[in-house]
């Protein structure tokens, strides 16, 4: 899971923010902050909403081809230490380092 991927929300925890379980959007910022991606949702009448969603509450619907270099260009300060991808249950940066110790337990 990374920037520009189309993702679906799997939790109803964001309904008060206007995002329902099952809504799809796309990841619009490269970096992961507080184990969350910033996702853009487009609703009827071209309404756009940005919402920070925890990675555990997202599933990839459609991957978008992006190289590591393109991800780097979108990271603050183009710093490769930023967490920016989720692969096989691990939050990772461009150096291949993993943030969590246990797969799919993003707080470990």
């Amino acid at each position, binding site marked *: 899971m990374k920037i*520009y991927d189309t993702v679906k929300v799997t939790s109803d925890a964001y309904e008060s923010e206007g995002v329902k379980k099952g809504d799809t959007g*796309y990841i*619009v*910022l490269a*970096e992961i*902050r*507080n184990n969350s991606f*910033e996702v*853009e949702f*487009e609703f009827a*009448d*071209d309404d*756009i909403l*940005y919402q*920070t969603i925890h990675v555990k509450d997202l599933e990839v619907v459609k991957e*978008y081809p*992006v190289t590591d270099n*393109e991800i780097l*260009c*979108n990271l*603050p300060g183009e710093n490769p230490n930023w967490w920016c991808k989720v692969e096989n249950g691990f939050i990772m940066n461009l150096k291949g380092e993993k943030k969590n110790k246990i797969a799919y337990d993003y707080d470990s």
Partner: protein
Amino acid sequence: MSESRTIFKNVNKPEYYHPNCKCVNKEQLNPEFSVIFDPRKMTYVFNDVNKCKMVRTMGYIPEDAEEMRSNISRLVISGFSKGEYKLGKLNENGQHISVFYNIPGKRDCSDISYRCIAGCVAWPNGKILVATPIIKEKKQ
């Protein structure tokens, strides 16, 4: 709560930047703004069904992507500098802003100017990240 002020006579008023004073120094801030606009965002616009349909109604085709990116970058800086923006959410990713701009159509729509919005995030030191480059404003 009222601020205490020290009033000096002309004969003994201190120079500015002296220690322990209560002078208020207001600087004219004039930062240089720069836009961070990943070229892939325009590619994404033309690859997404709904977004592509929207820009095509304005006369733009995928070959115009780089020209659009350049124009929108310039228009975002211009719009932001003139205060033509609306504040959105402030979160850990930064201050979200919607910058308003007018962009001319192309080809059959070249005589029409479209009012659009760019979804951006204001970062420190005058940097503006373009998150959503073009949303046609709804007609009211």
